């Protein structure tokens, strides 16, 4: 089972890199936010997998809970902060 966790962690860290293309290349601010949110939610599961790998899941589950709260609050705050979603269109 430890081997399965290790393989899943490797696959997840490869999948984690895909939304960063959208963060880098996104034509609008919303695309970048969407990519950052997707990467954050995949990091949450990666933290849980690290907890199973290090046999310290009782500590890592609290960290992942804090990370989930931080991800949600960050996305809400940034989507409220950015006034120009569409590039080139000023309010």
């Amino acid at each position: 089972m430890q081997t399965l966790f290790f393989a899943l962690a490797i696959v997840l860290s490869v999948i984690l890199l895909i939304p960063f293309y959208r963060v880098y290349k996104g034509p609008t601010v919303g695309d970048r936010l969407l990519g950052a949110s997707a990467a954050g939610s995949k990091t949450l599961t990666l933290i849980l997998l690290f907890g199973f790998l290090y046999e310290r899941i009782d500590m890592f589950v609290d960290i992942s809970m804090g990370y989930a709260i931080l991800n949600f609050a960050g996305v809400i705050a940034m989507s409220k902060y950015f006034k120009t979603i569409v590039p080139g269109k000023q309010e």
Partner: protein
Amino acid sequence: MSHFSEILAGVLMFGGVFFMLLGSIGLLRMPDFYTRAHAAGKIDTLGIMLFIVGMVVYEGLTLVSAKLALVAVFVALTSPVATHQMTRRALAYGLKPWVRPEAQTGETEEPHALGN
């Protein structure tokens, strides 16, 4: 019995990783912000939920599995709210949805082509 629960946990985790991969590819390939938001919603709801349910099955009935279920409930509550907030903000600031090139009416320009 524990062997069966390990197999079930592995299958559920593989399902979660599969849906995360699917959502990532959708985030990469979709033509528009709204369709990308639709694809990225699958990562949070289906992917993380299946993954955490698999972890709960592997862990058994402990305090840690209760906390894992709490993380799943929190993600299920907040992730659709965040996606909805982003799309609502984009619509409020006038981002036009993507339409097919043959169904276009004049001045609306297409953001990307979707392949064939």
